[in-house]
């Protein structure tokens, strides 16, 4: 470990601030775009048009919605646990933003290229459950409480197969540094070697972000709005922002681990395409395709039942991911 010195801090400070500003801007912009995209995708899947009024094809709709949310009164219901209640939205957003510190958008475009990047990602990601628990418990609402309790069980159940499936990627690339994992995929993307792990990881990341069909935490048909029932204005808005931020994180990690990160397709006929776009663009294209699939899933399926959700994780995902890990370990040692 290097010794942290004052001069180092001074040298690093501009870079840190720049990264922070860029990441926050990226997250906010993404949320605006993704909400618009979600509404358009949902609309067209349902033979509707989606937002059409504000701006050309409703492009400015989410911006206006955001402004409206900011203008709303922030209500603190009686008998809430005020510190927890107010802290929860921030607690949800901060880890989602902090994760971006280690995500490499391209070879150079990474705020901090840690050698244990993958671990940092999962450490931060598991914090989100705390935020939901704080929100549900703090708001002194029975729907919120049930939602929060569901969230804990769900996160515990889905984190394990997710980590196990990621381990097999680590076995392949011999590193937990995210740039290292991407570089290891120069020749061939991991999805080709690890389709099962990819599928498990993808399902788990949908569940981790509490997106339909795994959105039991908010499950509006039984829990009205689950953990954020009592939130108004920007309190709700920040949760919303956090949800979309963690959606991007999930898709980004999946891209890095399985879809070759910023690498264009270097195999088959795709090899010719690789040079067309710069690395960042390749990365973002893959991320948005994954996000589109998440949306597609959301607007197609009904919500699963809670016990079945847990059963699916413990009885299907976990055995499959473990088997996959063992097979990978054996094959790489051969």
């Amino acid at each position, binding site marked *: 470990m290097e010794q942290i010195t004052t001069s180092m801090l001074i040298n690093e400070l501009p870079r840190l601030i720049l990264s922070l500003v860029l990441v926050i801007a990226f997250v906010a912009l993404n949320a605006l775009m993704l909400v618009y995209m979600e509404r358009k995708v*949902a609309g067209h*899947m*349902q*033979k*509707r048009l989606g937002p059409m009024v504000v701006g050309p094809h409703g492009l400015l709709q989410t911006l206006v919605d955001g402004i409206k949310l900011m203008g709303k009164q922030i209500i603190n219901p009686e008998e809430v646990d005020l510190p927890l209640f107010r802290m929860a939205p921030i607690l949800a957003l901060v880890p989602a933003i902090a994760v971006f510190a280690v995500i490499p958008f391209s070879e150079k475009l990474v705020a901090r290229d840690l050698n244990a990047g993958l671990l940092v990602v999962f450490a931060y990601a598991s914090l989100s459950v705390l935020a939901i628990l704080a929100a549900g418990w703090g708001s002194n609402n*029975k*729907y919120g409480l*049930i939602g929060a309790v*569901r969230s804990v069980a769900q996160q515990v159940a889905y984190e394990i197969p997710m980590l196990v499936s990621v381990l097999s990627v680590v076995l392949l690339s011999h590193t937990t540094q995210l740039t290292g994992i991407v570089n290891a995929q120069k020749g061939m993307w991991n999805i080709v070697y690890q389709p099962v792990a990819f599928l498990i990881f993808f399902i788990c990341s949908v569940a981790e972000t509490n997106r*339909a*069909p795994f*959105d039991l935490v908010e*499950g*509006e*048909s*039984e829990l*009205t709005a689950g953990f954020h029932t009592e939130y108004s204005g920007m309190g709700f808005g920040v949760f919303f922002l956090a949800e979309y931020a963690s959606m991007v994180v999930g898709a980004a990690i999946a891209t890095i681990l399985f879809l070759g990160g910023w690498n264009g397709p270097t195999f088959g006929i795709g090899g010719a395409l690789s040079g067309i776009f710069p690395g960042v663009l390749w990365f973002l294209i893959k991320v948005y395709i994954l996000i589109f699939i998440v949306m597609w899933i959301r*607007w*197609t*399926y*009904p*919500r*699963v*039942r*809670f*016990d*079945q959700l847990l059963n699916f994780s413990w009885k299907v995902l976990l055995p499959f991911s473990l088997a996959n890990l063992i097979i990978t370990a054996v094959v790489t040692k051969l």
Partner: protein
Amino acid sequence: MKIERNLEEHSLYLNMGPQHPSTHGVLRVILKLDGEYIEEAEPVLGYIHRMHEKMGENRTYAQYLPNMGRVDYLSALSYNQCYVGAVERLTGIAPPPRAEYIRVITTELNRLSSHLLWFGAYVLDLGGFTPFLYSFDDREHILDLLESITGSRLTYCYFRFGGVSKDITDDFITGTRAFIKRLRMHLPMYETLVTKNVIFINRVKEVGIITPEAARRYGVTGPALRGSGIKYDVRKNEPYSIYPEVDFDIPVQDGCDALSRYIVRMLEMEQSMRIIEQALDKLPEGPVMAPKVPKKVKPPKGDCYFAVETARGDFGIYIVSDGTETAYRIKLRTPGFSNLSIFAEISRGTLLQDAISTMGSLDLVIPEIDR
């Protein structure tokens, strides 16, 4: 029936409704929960009670007709049919055959629209948003068709004592045939999207078990009863109007669960389409109103009961006349009332999410329950 609150226990009392996304209107259910398991459920009614029965005593027979569209706004024409049927039985007015055919065609279209709405709303209850809009897209065509005949889109007041208020047009007939063709094409799509979906099946299978014995104790009727393996349909058991002249089946499933009730309704849509097609083929010429209907309907003294099969079950009207222009007593026996009364029993011991899918599978329309 009543939930006693005991603060010593570690139970959670959850007040679901009267404003709740899944109670379809203003139904309130007090739930006593142990974790997510329901220990007791107590439905609380009356939030949209309008005392339709009292209105019947204060209005003339003709003036009470518009009320029928408001009792159950989703199958208003079945209610129209029951009421005019009861008054016709009481007074001895006989509608001409063409009117009877038109009544059946429009009522079955109305049943289709009710089932389509239920399908969408049920999947919405289970968290699937998209099928809801697909079924509304189809339902909109029925509403357009019925609007072109009756003049309203939801609370129809179309049948009259001794006939119907307006003859159907050729446009309506071609439109109906085109719609049936369209719906036949769309039903397999619903099947792929919902019926076969593994998440959906897991949500409804073996959920909300209504045993045939319990169904009889509570007086459950309609698709909820037919999902418990009992082949009872007023249209077959006690045929009225022109139902004996058309060929149709009564779909029955014996799973006793929400899935069976779901499948019964989906199969019923096909049967409704068959009835409409046959009725359109056989549609006789002639007037649509009986020749001598008095301006003021004044049935003789006496009582009479008339029952029809609505989209939700057996709806009966019991009229007691004292020989004047207004009824002495009108009793509306609504199917939803009995169907909901079983909810407390079948939801006991199930998960909160199962209660939602059970409630949805009963196809509740609260105004009809509260009257």
